[in-house]
């Protein structure tokens, strides 16, 4: 049974104009002028007959006019008949979604599945006629967009330039893989676009491509709208796709991973790798997992480990089908090095080569000298007036035991570590304020002022000079702090803030504050993996000093009362509580070490054992000191410098890289100095090649055709019947107009 379609249904709104002739007739009808006449005897009968005739004529005229408008509007709406009995080739828009995610890189008879998919896509386009149009949408790189109307040049979906696509001349930036005119006409052009799509290393969700494809087809004005999806239909990629709701689109699925292919698939992959610090500190343990996705057991699989491209070890693994094998290797730490070491883990190539390598950026432990300045060695407190010591404060229980313990030094250097260096990267040295000298300051980059009551004028000047020369300062408050002195002298010289008063009662333990992330993305808090407003740790803070940050400072973390906890200014941090167990149990919590380390690493450098890991397509974001803006650069695995966007945020600099697609190690430099290294490895999800079954596919894509790879040749011979009817309606409209002209001119009265 033929079906009537409207290719331009929006035009049907023009039917509102159909009653216009009637309205004009009704509203412009003037009342006939009255004329006194000698007698109406000769007019009466004549008029009666004429009136009837005229009324019929007017009704006919209005009907014809309304019909002319209606047929014109219908013609503009482009009605078309489609169906098996309709002769005539219907115009077609065909959009192909080409899966170029990493999983399409697996090899089939020596050829990648992606190149097979490309051939099939070309075949589909070659089956179109010259009057048809279409589009090609790669899954990796497609973003959801809104189709734009023609006019002013651009008619198409605005998307970002797709990943893995070298845009040829004429393809506009921001229009995806179609030109500025939306769907591309001509099978040759469409087939040519296939070669512009490259295989991605990334894992990309399919929803964006599907939405883009449907949006393209929604703006098509052709009779037939066809969507082809050429993919391995990997389960992890497609199982959560929303079923398309668009009607009138014929969907054809070409799954490339048939059951026979699955049977021959042998795939081993490196799932994850990590480095664990060990004692003695000169060694690190590399641990990694090898997964077997094949159907048969893999025995004696050689696993090679390389350091900077040189083989340092070879392991052999026996991995059962569908299971993982955990392997490890000790790595000797090269101390004193200033750059990361690229560690590569390599498997023999199999059907899916992309997951046969894994990269780690092993960071050299940076040794940072840290000077801890305090009033005196930690001891039992005496109480007095004038500063924060409160009368009657007592020390009890475990806290008595904690008195006199140098928690800071302990946190910075493992007990078994030597004086010259350790894995944590800090060399702490504690002195009293009276021992502060220029010589001491010259040896370090970082100074911690811990619970210092006052400084002499000389001491204060030395610290101010140290800071202004690029030295970094961490100010930790406590019970000895002389608030008045700090506000008058110390803080104006070293940190833009003002102390207001003490919160919390000495000895009072029932109420407490928690430490909350204010800038969760700050490097100090990033490793805690919390969101803004979330608790950083379970440590309980019973006492703190209320502080107000002045200009050029910002709050990184706050207490649950809303009072600032960690403030940052240029080259300095202020912690408004104490490392004293009397004030809080931070030193006993698991957050003390990482918090102190991250504060110092942020201020003074240092870093983790292994550089951060990314997946292909991820974007690197880092916050650096603002003074590094001019010299910062990012170099990729093949030595290519990556482009960075830089945004100044007060005292720090936010850098954002372009998507990291190449697998391997990336290094971040500030001038010649390597700041950090990162590795990009394939998403393990791509290794899981298990596809959706045909039944599952049809549940998502109701009514779709599934064409196997072997039958894909049939796609070129698809018949697309359809007949547009607008010429017929236009002729009808012209006919009505001619009839209107003839009827309007018929003024000769009949006898």
């Amino acid at each position: 049974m033929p079906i009537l379609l409207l290719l331009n249904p929006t035009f049907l709104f023009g039917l509102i104009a159909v009653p216009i002739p009637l309205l004009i007739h009704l509203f412009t009808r003037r009342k006939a002028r009255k004329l006194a006449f000698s007698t109406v005897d000769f007019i009466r009968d004549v008029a009666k007959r004429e009136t009837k005739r005229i009324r019929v004529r007017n009704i006919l005229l209005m009907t014809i006019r309304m019909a002319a408008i209606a047929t014109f509007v219908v013609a503009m709406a482009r009605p078309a008949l489609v169906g098996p009995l309709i002769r005539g080739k219907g115009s077609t828009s065909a959009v192909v979604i080409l899966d170029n995610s990493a999983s399409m890189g697996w090899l089939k008879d020596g050829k990648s599945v992606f190149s097979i998919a490309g051939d099939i896509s070309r075949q589909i386009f070659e089956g179109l006629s010259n009057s048809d149009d279409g589009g090609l949408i790669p899954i990796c790189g497609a973003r959801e967009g809104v189709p734009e109307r023609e006019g002013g040049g651009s008619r198409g979906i605005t998307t970002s330039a797709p990943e893995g696509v070298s845009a040829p001349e004429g393809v506009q930036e921001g229009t995806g893989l179609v030109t500025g005119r939306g769907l591309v006409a001509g099978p040759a052009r469409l087939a040519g676009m296939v070669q512009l799509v490259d295989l991605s290393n990334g894992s990309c969700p399919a929803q964006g491509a599907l939405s883009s494809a449907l949006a393209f087809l929604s703006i098509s004005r052709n009779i037939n709208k066809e969507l082809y999806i050429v993919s391995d239909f990997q389960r992890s990629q497609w199982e959560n796709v929303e079923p398309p709701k668009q009607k009138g689109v014929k969907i054809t699925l070409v799954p490339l991973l048939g059951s026979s292919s699955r049977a021959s698939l042998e795939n081993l992959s490196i799932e994850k790798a990590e480095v664990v610090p060990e004692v003695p500190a000169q060694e690190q343990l590399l641990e990694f997992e090898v997964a077997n996705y094949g159907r048969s057991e893999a025995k004696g699989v050689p696993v090679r480990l390389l350091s900077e491209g040189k083989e340092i070890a070879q392991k052999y693994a026996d991995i059962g089908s569908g299971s993982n094998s955990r392997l490890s290797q000790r790595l000797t730490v090269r101390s004193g090095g200033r750059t990361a070491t690229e560690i590569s883990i390599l498997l023999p190539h199999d059907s899916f080569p992309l997951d046969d390598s894994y990269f780690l950026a092993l960071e050299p432990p940076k040794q940072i000298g840290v000077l801890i300045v305090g009033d005196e060695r930690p001891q039992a407190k005496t109480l007095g007036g004038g500063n924060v010591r409160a009368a009657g404060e007592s020390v009890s229980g475990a806290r008595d035991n904690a008195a006199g313990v140098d928690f800071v030094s302990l946190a910075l250097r493992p007990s078994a570590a030597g004086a010259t260096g350790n894995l944590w990267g800090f060399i702490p040295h504690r002195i009293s304020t009276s021992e502060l000298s220029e010589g001491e300051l010259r040896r370090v980059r970082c100074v911690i002022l811990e619970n210092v009551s006052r400084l002499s004028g000389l001491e204060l000047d030395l610290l101010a000079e140290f800071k202004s020369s690029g030295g970094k300062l961490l100010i930790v408050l406590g019970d000895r702090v002389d608030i008045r002195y700090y506000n008058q002298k110390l803080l104006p010289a070293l940190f833009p803030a003002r102390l207001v008063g003490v919160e919390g009662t000495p000895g009072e333990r029932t109420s407490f504050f928690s430490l909350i992330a204010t800038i969760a993305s700050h490097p100090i808090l990033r490793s805690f993996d919390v969101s803004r407003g979330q608790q950083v740790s379970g440590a309980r803070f019973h006492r703190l000093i209320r502080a107000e940050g002045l200009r050029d400072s910002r709050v990184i973390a706050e207490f649950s009362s809303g009072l600032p906890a960690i403030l940052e200014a240029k080259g300095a941090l202020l912690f408004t509580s104490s490392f004293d167990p009397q004030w809080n149990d931070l030193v006993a919590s698991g957050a003390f070490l990482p918090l102190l380390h991250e504060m110092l690493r942020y201020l003074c450098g240092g870093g983790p054992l292994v550089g951060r890991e990314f997946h292909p397509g991820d974007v690197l974001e880092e916050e650096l000191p603002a003074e590094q803006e001019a010299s910062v650069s990012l170099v990729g695995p093949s030595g290519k410098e990556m482009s960075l966007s830089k945004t100044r945020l007060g005292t720090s600099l936010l850098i954002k890289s372009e998507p990291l697609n190449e697998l391997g190690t990336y290094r971040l430099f500030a001038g010649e100095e390597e700041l950090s290294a990162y590795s990009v490895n394939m998403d393990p999800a791509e290794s899981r090649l298990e596809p959706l079954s045909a039944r599952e596919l049809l549940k998502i894509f109701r009514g779709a055709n599934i064409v196997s790879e072997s039958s894909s040749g049939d796609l070129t011979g698809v018949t697309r019947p359809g007949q547009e009817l607008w010429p017929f309606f236009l002729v009808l409209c012209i006919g009505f107009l001619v009839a209107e002209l003839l009827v309007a001119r018929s003024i000769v009265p009949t006898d």
Partner: protein
Amino acid sequence: MYVQNERIQDERKFLDPLVVSKLSNLELRARLVVEGFIAGMHKSPYKGFSVEFAEHRQYMPGDPIKNIDWKVYARRDRFYVKEFEEETNLRAYILLDFSASMGYSSGTGVTKLHYACSLASALSYLMLRQQDSVGLLTFTNQIKHYIPPRSVKGHLKVILTELNKLSPGETTNVSKSLELLAARIRRRGLIILFSDLMDDQTAVLSALKHFRHRKHEVIVFHLLDESELGFPFDEELTFVDMETHEEVVADAKQIGARYKRNIEKWIAEYKRQCHEHLVEYALLCTSTPYDVALTRYLEKRARLH
């Protein structure tokens, strides 16, 4: 010659109803029309008509001395008297329809009634000048006023006074008025009817035949406006009957041709029937010069004698 022609032209202008209508004084109008007509008589094919006297006869003792034609005496040395037409005893009855439809004018300012009154007054003037008796009967759907025929001096004024008073109104009943008059008059006379005849055609014709049956001579001056004949309208109009106030909406452009055919047919029937029954019929448009009517009258008078 030139002067004479000019004079003739000047006087002929008073035969133009539009010109005459500008004169408010009916007597003046009448006089000018007649004199214009008479002046035109020199060039008219109706030469030989005399309006002053019928014939000469030899003087008999007792004849008024004033009637002796001294010119003839000078020529023939014999006494002859003028025999005036009064002596023919022509009694004329002017029947004038002043129903509402007679008040119609197509905008020229000359209504049918106005035309009729001018013509009636001119005829009265002419006839009285010829010593004929003239009476007047005015009617609408009934006889409104009757002035018996007289020929005395001052009778014109009576007629003109009555004519001056006329104002169109009411419906028409021509046949009834004709029948009543026919029953009233015994002596043979000349019936001059001024009407648009917008009435039952059969009844009107029947009444006219009645007059003929009684041996009266009848002249029917059928008065119509130009627009009643030509129907020059070309828009949709609501025609309002001036007598019945009936309204008919019609597209004049659409019905014009048929209207004209119908009215022509109607007029032709009047013409035919009148001719058949020896009733003098003259279709006059309100723009027709008065001499046409006057000439008709004279022709008729001549036939009578």
